């Protein structure tokens, strides 16, 4: 029975979700990291809540970036370790479909989780609730883009010694436009200026990355698995 690309996609997403939920503690780690890092800033800077909102967008985004990076290591690692990745590659489905499925599943359990937790963090940082819509949208677009950049980086660094340091070194420079525009969007929402430009740019980055990154990530996997 040959499996079509869509079927393969859903099968893999389903598998990834089931595997992820088998170890809920693993899912919580990036979230807890996100919360801890965001609390470090107000503690370290001892600012009043009203002043905190000035740095809040940047703090939020840096924390989200770091939390996502933390979880990217697991994107391909466990499958590469036990040989599943090679089996998937040999399955004839084409690495691109597999990569898209794994990355989407990864975003659902990490990026999306960060987005859902962000109102709590936003409140803790003094971000006013009427900026929440922009904050959520910008984080959703940003974490999705980041998952894709991370997929490329993860594909290149599977199995390397100190792979996660290299992964961060590769992904962070590529993610700086995200950081700049994501934080800018939230900042403008807080100050009441128009967020349309920043959000359009974030969306453009997201679309650009989502269309090209799968091929780059599949190529990266091919290089690693050869």
């Amino acid at each position: 029975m040959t499996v079509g690309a869509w079927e393969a996609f859903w099968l893999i997403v389903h598998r990834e979700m089931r595997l992820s939920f088998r170890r809920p503690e693993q899912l919580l780690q990036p979230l807890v990291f996100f919360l801890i890092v965001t609390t470090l800033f107000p503690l370290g800077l001892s600012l009043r809540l009203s002043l905190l909102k000035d740095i809040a967008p940047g703090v939020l985004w840096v924390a989200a970036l770091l939390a996502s990076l933390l979880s990217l290591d697991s994107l391909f690692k466990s499958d590469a370790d036990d040989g599943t990745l090679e089996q998937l590659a040999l399955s004839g489905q084409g690495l691109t479909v597999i990569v898209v499925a794994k990355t989407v599943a990864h975003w659902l359990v990490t990026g999306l989780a960060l987005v859902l937790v962000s109102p709590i963090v936003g409140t803790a940082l003094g971000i006013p609730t009427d900026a929440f819509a922009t904050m959520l949208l910008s984080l959703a677009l940003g974490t999705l883009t980041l998952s894709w950049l991370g997929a490329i980086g993860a594909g290149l660094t599977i199995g390397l010694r100190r792979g996660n340091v290299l992964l961060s070194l590769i992904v962070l420079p590529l993610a700086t436009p995200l950081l700049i525009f994501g934080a800018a969007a939230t900042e403008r929402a807080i100050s009441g200026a128009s967020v349309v430009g920043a959000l359009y740019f974030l969306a453009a980055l997201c679309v650009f990355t989502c269309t090209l990154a799968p091929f780059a990530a599949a190529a990266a996997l091919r290089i690693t698995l050869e």
Partner: protein
Amino acid sequence: MWTWFYKLASPPHVFGVAVALAPWLFSAAALAIAYGLIAGLAIAPPDYQQGEAFRMIYAHVPSAILSVTVYTVMAVASAVALIWRIKVGHAVAAASAPIGASFTLMTLVTGSLWGRPMWGTYWAWDPRLTSELILLFLYVGVMSLRSAFEDPARGDRAAALLAVVGVVNVPIVHFSVVWWNSLHQGATIVTLEGPKMPGSMLWPLLSMWLGFMLFYGAVLCIRVQAEVLDRERQSAWVREAIKS
């Protein structure tokens, strides 16, 4: 007619070309840079706005152009190596990375020294400066990735992919002054109305630009020899090549 082009895929041929070209490129580079420096530092008149400080343009602008050009060369060589599996491409990419990184550092430092008297600050988180800094990080990332693999061939391919992915930063660096409100000056040489600089200031700049490009070519020749030797160590032609 295109044989000279196809031969470039052959490591011994590239090695031979590099050995032969290097001295000429160094000499030409030295001449162009010498003229550029003398004319730029001593002959060109001072700028009516920036005074003598504008002369830093003769170090800053050529290095900036080179930092971006070398990355592009590295990305193109990487793409060629990945798509057509021409190993010489990896040698050129690996040879170009440290040169490009050094030019990027030169750009950042010379720009910083120019920024202090002109803008009052050694640094600003401005789109052009930031994207140039990211370019430096990308160079470092490519070099680190290549050296992290035990299998050099795999390292070459991984670094090549990263170089190609990172090339999106190149248009960002170039167009940052157009797309955003930048502290940094806009385009003055390549504009629709022609160069905005008088000839006495422009010619030394063009000469420095040419000199730096020739210098890159010369250093590339040296480094490419080393990279080709490392990748072709087992081949028979290496024995003869080293004797020289």
